[in-house]
């Protein structure tokens, strides 16, 4: 029994050498300057959504955290790590709730299943404005089962609702599984990187992109921080 387990472990190491030398890139995304005030959203024409929000809802273009942290930045390996072609079998979900998209930014792998859920008591019509991929829009009345879709090319896609003009989200369709979305403190983490030279890209929907080159030599953690310049308007 023990021999078998050891054998499996050895084989696993052969197949995934990354497990032996798994480097990690981690860091923080921050901004300098003063971000524009996020405008409030008036949902009064859709009372079933308005009543779900105890506090006023604002747009989510720039979500700032404490100490100038910048949330919702997609950080991913844009070159250096060849796409392992492994499409995660788990679907990512995009929920329409309270007439907002949750999450606001949804990263996914090319060809990964995308499930769109309507949890509201009103009809939505989701319309991702794809330019490289095929563009579509679909109506989803309340109670409709989740829609299932996938994108076969890498692209940042702006998503809108054809019924509620204020609804806005992003699909980040990536050619890699090495990605993360910066959290409330601006932190991100890209684990399990085999040794090599990488280019990391940080993408923000309003502030644009930034890149950094990182070399991973072995079992180590490299710190990389990104600083975006905030726009006053």
């Amino acid at each position: 029994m023990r021999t078998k387990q050891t054998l499996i472990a050895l084989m696993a190491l052969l197949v995934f050498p990354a497990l032996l030398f798994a480097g990690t890139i981690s860091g923080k995304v921050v901004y300098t300057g003063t971000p524009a005030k996020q405008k409030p959203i008036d949902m009064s024409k859709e009372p079933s959504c308005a009543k779900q929000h105890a506090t006023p809802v604002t747009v989510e273009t720039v979500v700032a955290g404490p100490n100038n942290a910048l949330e919702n930045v997609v950080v991913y390996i844009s070159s250096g790590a060849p796409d392992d072609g492994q499409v995660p079998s788990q679907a990512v979900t995009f929920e329409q709730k309270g007439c907002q998209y949750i999450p606001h930014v949804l990263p996914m792998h090319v060809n990964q299943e995308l499930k769109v859920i309507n949890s509201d008591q009103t009809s939505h019509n989701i319309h991702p404005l794809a330019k490289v991929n095929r563009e579509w829009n679909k109506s989803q009345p309340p109670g409709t089962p989740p829609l299932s879709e996938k994108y076969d090319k890498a692209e940042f896609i702006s998503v809108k609702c054809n019924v509620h003009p204020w609804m806005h989200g992003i699909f980040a369709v990536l050619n890699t599984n090495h990605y993360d979305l910066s959290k409330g403190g601006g932190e991100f983490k890209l684990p399990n990187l085999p040794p090599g030279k990488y280019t990391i890209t940080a993408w923000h929907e309003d502030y644009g992109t930034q890149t950094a080159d990182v070399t991973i030599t072995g079992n180590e953690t490299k710190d990389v921080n990104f600083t975006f310049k905030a726009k006053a308007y």
Partner: protein
Amino acid sequence: MAKFFSITIVLIAIFSAIPILRHTWVAPEDISTHGALIDEQMSETMAEAGISFLAAQFILALFIWKFSNRGPDAKIKSFPGGAKGLVIAALLVVGVEVMALGVFGVKAWANVYLDAPSANAMPIQVQAGQFAFYFRYPGPDGKFGGLHPELINEGSQNIFGLDPEHDVDARDDIVAAEMAIPVNKEVHLLMHAKDVGHSFFVRELRVQQDFVPGLDVSLHFTATKVGKYEIVCTQLCGLGHYNMKAYLEVMSQQDFDNWLKQQAGQ
């Protein structure tokens, strides 16, 4: 059988006139200074069209009653002077009636469209787009910033395509999803569509005006009663048309000033 048909026509005509004459369906309360003229015009139109309708039905019934039992050999009499005279006479009668409605209606129409708004009328811009109305106030500087359609981004709530970074006038512009106005103050409404045709309809205001893409339409009115009224789109504009509405809040001047301040602070 023909006589039965003739009586049925008369009965249908009379029964359809009864609810109109009894005012079964009353118009919603009028809250505008010009609404009385519009209502008067509507009643005049209804009366004239109603009389013509009843007359036409009664004459039809009479002819059926009188001539339905003719034998196959009966001679058909033609209208004196032939059909030409009849057509000209009909055109004159109907034409004069329509012209008269138009001429008398101009005074109601002019109030909203033709006369220039007074110098101190409050300008509000309204933009219709699938499927919401948005309203813009010029802010404390009294000037609207320029419009840059390429900058329209609903995701960041730049509904009108303003450029506050380069355009000082746009910085204090107030954009809202509801329309607040002070009571007894003239409002000059500047209307444009973002995408397709829409319509701005407030029953109580007696204002119903289409948005035509590419045209800047303007009208003016004065609301006379504080309250909350519904603004609906009455031009089928697409999938979400049923849900395209906003609210008109008519407030006291003081409430309105507070509302503006609150909007500006957001």
